[in-house]
């Protein structure tokens, strides 16, 4: 058992690229699901829009990065509007079905052979995404005890967490504003808010779009960090992971998604590293568990974790159970 390597990987991934990307996506879902009570299961679709906007516009067309990011954000706003118009007047589960379907539409269109020349099919698009941006990096890689980042990863992670901090601050400010209070009261009792003369539909739409824009930024960072996009990275599992993160950290808490993402990725990497090492060292017979299957065990644990959390501790680690009156709609 190589304990140093296990902890090295776990702690690095705790604040690593994946943790940043999922944290951003989770910050978006937290606004939708946590504060407004909207079941957006299409966060993967929003992220895919951000990622593909950067991929197509920067790599294939050759636009500057900032313009591509703006286009991605606009794209996600339009996507949010398209999803919101038919569903926000309906019961919450309709939104869940439609958003999950819409995210699948995006993924299947992105990986289709028909659009291979534009979107790169199931291989996606790789190339130079953000050379100018990486060139700004004044730091070298880091290799300090349990933290280990390459030069580029370190730059992504630093910028990513800075973006997370800005969005978290924005969320905090928004949620203590009158706008945020209306949003929370819609989650509690929609009819009461409506009877006070507020346009519930409009508020929900704004929350959906805002969360979606943050989700698209997650996709932008993902694409820039990986220097590639692959359609299957934006499958529904991304959305499910994000929900685990939001619920684990505590929905309707500003720091919920941040803590949730860190703990989630630490546990995920730690468990798979541990199993991996145990199988290699012969503590677990490879007849029972081969190293290929560790990824599958990981997914099973996420599934069970989501169930148990929702049943026994729906408020997560930091949440307040009173804030989670999500039902009766």
């Amino acid at each position, binding site marked *: 058992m190589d304990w140093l*390597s296990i902890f090295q990987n776990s702690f690095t991934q705790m604040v690593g690229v*994946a943790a940043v*990307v999922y944290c951003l996506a989770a910050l978006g879902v937290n606004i939708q699901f946590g504060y407004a009570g909207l079941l957006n299961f299409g966060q993967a679709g929003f992220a895919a829009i951000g990622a593909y906007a950067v991929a197509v516009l920067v*790599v294939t067309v050759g636009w500057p990065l900032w313009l591509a990011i703006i286009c991605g954000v606009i794209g996600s706003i339009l996507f949010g509007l398209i*999803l919101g118009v*038919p569903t926000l*007047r*309906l019961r*919450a*589960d*309709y939104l869940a*079905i*439609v958003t999950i*379907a*819409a995210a*699948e*539409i995006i993924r*299947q*269109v992105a990986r289709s052979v*028909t659009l*291979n020349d534009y979107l*790169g*099919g*199931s*291989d996606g*698009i790789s*190339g130079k995404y953000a050379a100018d941006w990486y060139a700004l990096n004044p730091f070298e890689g880091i290799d300090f005890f349990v933290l280990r980042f390459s030069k580029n990863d370190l730059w992504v992670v630093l910028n990513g967490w800075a973006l997370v901090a800005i969005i978290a601050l924005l969320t905090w400010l928004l949620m203590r504003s009158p706008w945020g209070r209306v949003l929370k009261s819609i989650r509690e009792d929609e009819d009461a808010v409506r009877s006070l003369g507020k346009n519930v539909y409009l508020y929900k739409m704004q929350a959906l779009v805002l969360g979606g824009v943050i989700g698209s930024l997650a996709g932008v960072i993902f694409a820039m*960090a*990986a*220097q*590639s996009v*692959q359609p*299957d*990275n934006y*499958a529904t*599992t991304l959305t*499910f*992971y994000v929900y685990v993160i939001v619920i684990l950290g505590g929905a309707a808490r500003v720091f919920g998604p941040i803590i949730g993402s860190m703990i989630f990725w630490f546990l995920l*990497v730690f468990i*798979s590293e541990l199993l991996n090492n145990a199988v*290699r060292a012969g503590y677990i017979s490879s007849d029972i568990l*081969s*190293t*290929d299957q*560790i*990824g*599958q*065990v990981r*997914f*099973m644990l*996420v*599934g069970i974790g*989501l*169930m*148990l959390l929702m*049943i026994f501790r*729906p408020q997560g680690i930091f949440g307040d159970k009173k804030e989670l009156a*999500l*039902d009766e*709609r």
Partner: protein
Amino acid sequence: MRTRLRVVDDGPGLLAHRRDTRAGLLRRRWALRSLAGVGALLLGLGASVLPALAADTGLKGTVKDPVSGSGIAGVSITVTGADGTPQTVTTAADGTWLVQVPSAGKYEVTIDQTTLPDGLTLADQSKVTAKVNVLSEGRVQTVLFKLAAGTAGEGGTAPSADAPASKWSQIPQLTVDGLIFGIVIALAAVGLSLVFGTTKLTNFAHGELIALGGLSTYFFNGVVGLPLILSAALAVVVSAFVGGWVQNRYLWKPLRKRGTGLIAALVVSIGLGLFLRYFFLFIFGGQTRSFDAYAGQAGIEIGPVLITPKDLISSTIGILLIALTTFWLLKTQAGKATRAVADNPALASASGIDVEKVISTVWVLGAGLASFSGIMLGLQVGVSWQMGFTILLLVFAGSVLGGLGTAFGAILGSIIVGLLVQLSTLIIPTELKYVGALVVLIIILLIRPQGILGKAERIG
């Protein structure tokens, strides 16, 4: 180049990627990609969050036997660039090939059919040469050649969908295909809709009941060795018991007693579905497999339509099952009680109906029907670990189209979705046929959110 600490000794472990040398990483990525969707998915969530490496520019692919799915070695592939210089390679033992090209641009890739093993040929003879556009430097583009049984020149036994000339003459065939697919969806949708009607649970784990039916049939048939028909019957019984009665008794009933909310229950079902899918993958592996009988059955021609006997018989049974369910709902006491509970559980309970018993019956019925849907799907396209999740959204589309919560609506909606999926291939590419149905789902919600047979009510 920064070389990481450790070179891993054996096995393509998922997390091993991170510590490998870059060359090793590339090789492992390669190996994983060839594991099709599963590999791509796991890779995506595991390793590809790391910056991609400056891979060489080129073209690659895998030549596979259409029946066994294993790679074919020694097939000759020629890549010709715009400047006209050809490069020829032969496939490796696992059927993979890779050609590196100097720059991005348009290339022509030709497969030499004489090097294919006997009895195999290209599914579409017009696609001996594929025109490929390599989008950017550093990109390795995949090129696929689809093979089929047959000999060159004969055209193979590929589905008639590849003949664009007689597009409209396919309408009868596609209609029949659509009806059969509609029955598959309807069998699953009845259970989904009845469970929703009686408990208001939006069950995202319903797809796994479909997979349970298909996979347990494969277990009895392929592993235990029972005849297919007996296996199918056993599978329906087992799925109805385990997927229906046990699931309700030990998961959903306690949750209802705890007063778990609807949205919480929805999230629980998502967790359950995720767990079950990867549990199936763990047990069953990533391949798509066929039952041991009727796999390559020849079709019989009825007028303009070609239909295999297995589809004819299984869809007849499917229709019978749906008809029986309808009869049960309309005419029997238990069926009437079910509709009463769906209508108003409190009132039903006050009228002396045992609501929990009704719910339990609905789960058993729904799981049994869904498992038969999985068996039909398995007969048509083979069984795999995610067969249920693949069509789950179409099942939702069918239920929502007909009106969520109404059994008859679910049947009607599903048939429409099935027809839509198949007939849409006249206009849109076959690979996007599910997308068309999902787009329609969104449009329906915009125009008539309560569905065709649903009651109009203000919701939300």
